[in-house]
């Protein structure tokens, strides 16, 4: 009585692994905290706390804060990928994956494709919260989808980077604190919450070089003009370059484990 097995392929294995990650999240809904609760909370908190001080009112502040929180949420969702991978590697389950006659890369690929779902949820949550707070961009819905996709692509590109950190680090705690620090520094030292001009000179320089500023600026421009801009193209190129550079590095680090 033998068991009929197919020569399983990368795609099939990857989708199984992505399905596994989805199941894990379903069983632990608190994993949705950072993609659902966090953007809602931040949007409300920042909007109502600082709206008046920074922009003279919540309504006026929304065009600034919505893209800001959107990208911050992408950063934090992407950073979860690193600690998730580290935890997996440290658990016995990974030994099992490695001892199976399956595509070697599937667990990593499954994680990174599973991340897309988290990023989509995070994007929808952020934008919807903005809408309920009174955010009404004047561009058509199509452009909203475009900025959503741009945000998701950015988040996904970053998750390769965080995955690399997860693979290189020794402990899950290291990954977590690194991710939190990076997330805070990148999002606060940018134009996510305040206009660049309001920053002190040295901070302005840092913020200008911060890629997060570039992404947020591009999104604001699309929302303001209703057209594909030079800076949006730059973001697209930037995201793809990250993937092109870091995907092989991440795979290399993964192979080393």
């Amino acid at each position, binding site marked *: 009585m033998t*068991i*009929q*097995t197919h020569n399983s392929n990368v795609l099939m294995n990857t989708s199984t692994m992505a*399905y*596994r990650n989805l*199941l894990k999240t379903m069983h632990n809904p608190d994993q949705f905290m950072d993609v659902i609760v966090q953007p809602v909370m931040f949007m409300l908190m920042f909007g109502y706390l600082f709206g008046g001080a920074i922009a003279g009112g919540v309504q006026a502040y929304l065009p600034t804060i919505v893209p800001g929180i959107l990208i911050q949420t992408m950063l934090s969702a992407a950073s979860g990928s690193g600690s998730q991978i580290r935890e997996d590697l440290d658990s016995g389950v990974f030994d099992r994956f*490695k*001892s199976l*006659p399956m595509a070697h890369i599937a667990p990593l690929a499954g994680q990174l494709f599973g991340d897309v779902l988290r990023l989509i949820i995070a994007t929808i949550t952020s934008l919807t919260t903005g809408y309920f707070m009174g955010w009404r961009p004047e561009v058509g819905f199509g452009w909203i989808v475009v900025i959503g996709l741009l945000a998701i692509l950015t988040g996904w590109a970053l998750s390769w980077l965080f995955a690399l950190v997860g693979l290189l680090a020794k402990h899950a705690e290291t990954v977590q604190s690194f991710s939190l620090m990076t997330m805070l520094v990148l999002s606060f030292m940018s134009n996510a919450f305040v206009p660049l001009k309001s920053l002190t000179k040295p901070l302005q320089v840092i913020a200008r070089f911060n890629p997060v500023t570039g992404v947020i600026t591009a999104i604001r421009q699309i929302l303001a003009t209703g057209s594909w801009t030079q800076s949006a193209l730059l973001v697209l190129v930037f995201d793809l370059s990250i993937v092109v550079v870091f995907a092989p590095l991440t795979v290399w680090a993964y192979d080393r484990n």
Partner: protein
Amino acid sequence: MTAIKAVEVSHLTKKFGHQTVVNDISFDVQPGEVFGLLGPNGAGKTTTLRMMTTLLKADTGQVKIFGHDTIKEGRLARSMFGLTGQYASVDADISARENLMIFSRLNGLSRQAAKQRTAELLAEFSLEHAADDPLKNFSGGMRRRLDLAVSLITRPALIFLDEPTTGLDPRTRTQMWETIRQLVRQGSTVLLTTQYLDEADALADRLAVIDHGKLVKVGTPAELKQQVGGTKLVFTVSERAQVATAVRVLAPQVTTAVQQIGQQLQISLNQLSQLAPILAAINQAKIEISQLSVQEPSLDDVFMTLTVGKN
């Protein structure tokens, strides 16, 4: 000896830093047998197993699974064995059924076949009642059973078990032994590691004793016991003054020297027929004895004699 071996391990060595954890180990496992790796904590059992199952790269040496090199034909070799690691290698965040489904799919079963196999294994390992509970609520025994079930999805011809019964209560342990015996009856080859001598004695056809990364001895449990001496006669001389006399009168009757520990005397017996003349000699010399026993060697003796252990 042209028959293909289930496992061929040759000159396996692994260093972690300066510490040689596995030191030039070689052995073969025949198809259909239960082969035990026996050794104290830190002996290198898990490390050896991890190299055999392609989880860890050996520094030097070679492993063949049913004739296939684990490095050159990794994927093929991996398709021929199932592995249950020392530490739970199932997904604790999802249910037993989901674990079996996912690992079935990863093993290349079609969705339909995976469903069917999952149902079979849940039944076989008495996990049906808890199939959809999160594993967090599972007892150690249930987890261990699920772990083994996952290793058996493809009915592999060779199964690696790293300390399959550590942490199980006596009843669950006996059940696990029965499960392993059942697998062997169905034609599987089993390679297991254990620190328990009774387990090795009960299950293994052949044993390799490992200590400090070195292979100390390979043989059947009976052969290993023979190594540390055969049957022993042990008794206590009641009167301290008579001990010397006893040793003297027994000397012509025995082939190896009589061992004396306080008032207790130990004599190695080559044959049980030596027993009668020995007792007669004692009787004739009017020596009072008590607490007489004839002891078969146990694997404990083997373990204690052959291994030094970490400490």
